């Protein structure tokens, strides 16, 4: 039983005192920022990246991962209690979760969200343990052709998952790819797009760009609606769902977990689309679809299970292929590189303690989260009441110090401010930042793999189509693109994202 020995190794690693501590710190911070609207896991993990220098690699990864899936739990709390999603992935929960709170069933809604997340987290941890190693084994056979094709597929998928105009999403990806090329070219050493600024020779830091767009740009947007924020509705009385509630949530939780696990693997924000898809599936198969939005427990159980499952399975491409599929995963890769570990298919075999320890810690983290979010819900309710005008200056301080400490460079701080402006403008133009950041990360890698592939095949581009794995990935990419452009699908996609507004 290979899996069992591996899991035993994982438990050995994750159950040490320090790793338990960092797991707890991670999920605690995750819940905190999840509860607080206006600060998400991307900015938080970026801020804490310098802190991880001092930790052991396993502890660092366990903590950062905890922040990410912890935020999925926390996001539902503010969605239910103040009608404002703490995280984008909880947007679908707002509809029925807040309606339940208005009926005095806030506690039950919170419990449903936590139970759903826990079940989803447990199942998706097993999926991760079962599917990641064989995938990594397959990835060991990948050459530059396959990696390039895989990245094309990833970028196409992220276009599909972006909301708003498809054309603008394509533009954002290309823009990101170009931004990623800033700095010295690895092959020739030529300085590209550096405008003779020495600080740009190493390229633009991903953390700098991510914090500018997700941190600063978001703050400026949140301040626009400051007056309408934070109104606590519904007090938390009884947490215990009734027998009838339990009966009704089983199906949605399992379906949500399945949808979330499948979509979470895809690049872009799989967890976001997963929560919407899970919600609309429940609405579609329900006998009383007209009751949705009026406090249906299914409308809380499904999206909350889906987003947690999606958050966890999004680790699969990162751990097995070394390819970031979301901005958060890019930061995780950054943390690994800081620790001197080259992410990729070899992590499973070369760093088994890290790999299995991380997976097992996710399950332990889910247990922590269940405890943190149910008996201690009162604490988070109080956190929500911290007014935004006290919160955002603190976020700015953490962003500024975080970016400065990366390389003791004030240039980076100013560059972050510039990305803040960009993030704000793009938000106004409804251009999604996530595909851009994905392109930004993949830009240099794609160029490198393309160049190598072309050298291997002596300039013959048709080899991308004669190698079976690369060909099938490119074909899937084309099929996905065509499907999305079909008028019927296009309409459902627009409707799916409409519910968010």
């Amino acid at each position, binding site marked *: 039983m290979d899996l069992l020995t591996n899991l035993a190794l994982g438990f050995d690693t994750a159950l040490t005192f320090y790793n338990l501590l960092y797991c707890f710190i991670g999920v605690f911070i995750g819940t905190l920022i999840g509860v607080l609207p206006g600060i998400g896991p991307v900015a938080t993990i970026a801020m804490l990246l310098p802190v991880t220098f001092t930790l052991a690699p396993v502890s660092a990864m366990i903590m950062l991962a905890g922040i990410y899936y912890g935020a999925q739990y926390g996001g539902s709390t503010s969605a239910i209690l103040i009608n404002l999603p703490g995280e984008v992935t909880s947007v679908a929960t707002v509809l029925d979760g807040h309606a339940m709170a208005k009926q005095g069933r806030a506690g039950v809604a919170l419990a449903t969200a936590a139970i759903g997340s826990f079940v989803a987290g447990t199942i998706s941890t097993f999926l991760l343990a079962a599917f990641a190693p064989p995938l990594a084994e397959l990835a060991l056979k990948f050459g530059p052709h396959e990696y390039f094709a895989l990245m094309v597929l990833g970028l196409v998928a992220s276009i599909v998952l972006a909301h708003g105009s498809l054309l603008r999403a394509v533009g954002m990806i290309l823009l990101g790819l170009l931004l990623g090329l800033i700095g010295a070219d690895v092959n*020739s050493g030529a300085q*590209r797009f550096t405008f003779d600024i020495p600080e740009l020779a190493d390229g633009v830091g991903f953390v700098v760009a991510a914090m500018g767009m997700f941190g600063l740009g978001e703050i*400026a947007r949140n301040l626009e609606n400051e007056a309408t924020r934070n109104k606590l509705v519904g007090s938390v009385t009884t947490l215990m769902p009734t027998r009838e509630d339990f009966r009704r949530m089983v199906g949605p939780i399992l379906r949500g977990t399945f949808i979330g696990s499948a979509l979470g693997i895809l690049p872009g924000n799989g967890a976001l689309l997963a929560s919407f898809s899970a919600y609309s599936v429940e609405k579609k198969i329900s006998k009383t679809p007209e009751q949705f939005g009026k406090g249906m427990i299914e409308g809380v159980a499904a999206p909350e299970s889906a987003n947690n499952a999606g958050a966890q399975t999004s680790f699969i491409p990162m751990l097995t292929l070394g390819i970031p599929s979301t901005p958060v995963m890019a930061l995780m890769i950054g943390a690994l590189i800081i620790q001197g570990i080259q992410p990729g298919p070899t992590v499973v075999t070369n760093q088994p303690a890290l790999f299995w320890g991380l997976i097992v810690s996710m399950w332990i983290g889910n247990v922590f989260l269940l405890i943190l979010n149910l008996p201690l819900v009162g604490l988070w309710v109080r956190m929500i009441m911290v007014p935004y005008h006290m919160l*955002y*200056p603190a976020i700015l301080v953490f962003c500024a110090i975080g970016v400065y400490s990366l390389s003791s460079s004030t240039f980076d*701080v100013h560059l972050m401010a510039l990305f803040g402006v960009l993030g704000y403008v793009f938000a106004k133009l409804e251009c999604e930042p996530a595909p851009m950041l994905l392109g930004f990360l993949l*830009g240099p890698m794609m160029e490198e793999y393309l160049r190598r592939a*072309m050298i291997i095949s002596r300039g013959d581009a048709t080899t991308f189509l004669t190698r079976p794995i690369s060909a099938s990935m490119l074909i899937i990419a084309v099929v996905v693109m065509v499907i999305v452009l079909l008028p019927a699908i296009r309409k459902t996609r627009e409707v799916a994202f409409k519910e968010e507004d």
Partner: protein
Amino acid sequence: MTIRNPKDFWSGLLFLAVGGTAVLLAQKYKLGTAFKMGPGYFPTALGGLLALVGLLAVLRSFIRPGTAIEPFHWRLLLMVTGSTVLFGLLMRGAGLSVAVLALVLASSAASIYFRWRTALILAAGLTVMTVLLFVKGLGLPISLIGTWFGG
């Protein structure tokens, strides 16, 4: 010709400008061949594609209607990013403590709930906290007092 989708129009224009500039700048780098790509090959291709996407978006903006762009609140944006720039300017010379104080005070002023008293308390609290956390706790090599004050 009227712009029926301002979001498409302006983002398209932006893509067109950036893509075009990238192609122009990339001409300075060696293009190479498909077999042996030079540093200019990939940027030229990407810039060209981006410009094309931008052009399509601009053209589409005249045909397919869309919603109006929400108003820009430049003052808010400027205060948030400007206070960050201020932090950067003060960091070396005045040191972390002054930089954090300035950042908190300047950014707090962007809020409609701004009061001097709460902002000062918040600034002082955050300064103490960051010093304890980042410098004492994590030992990051940041000077509390900058070169201007002989730090």
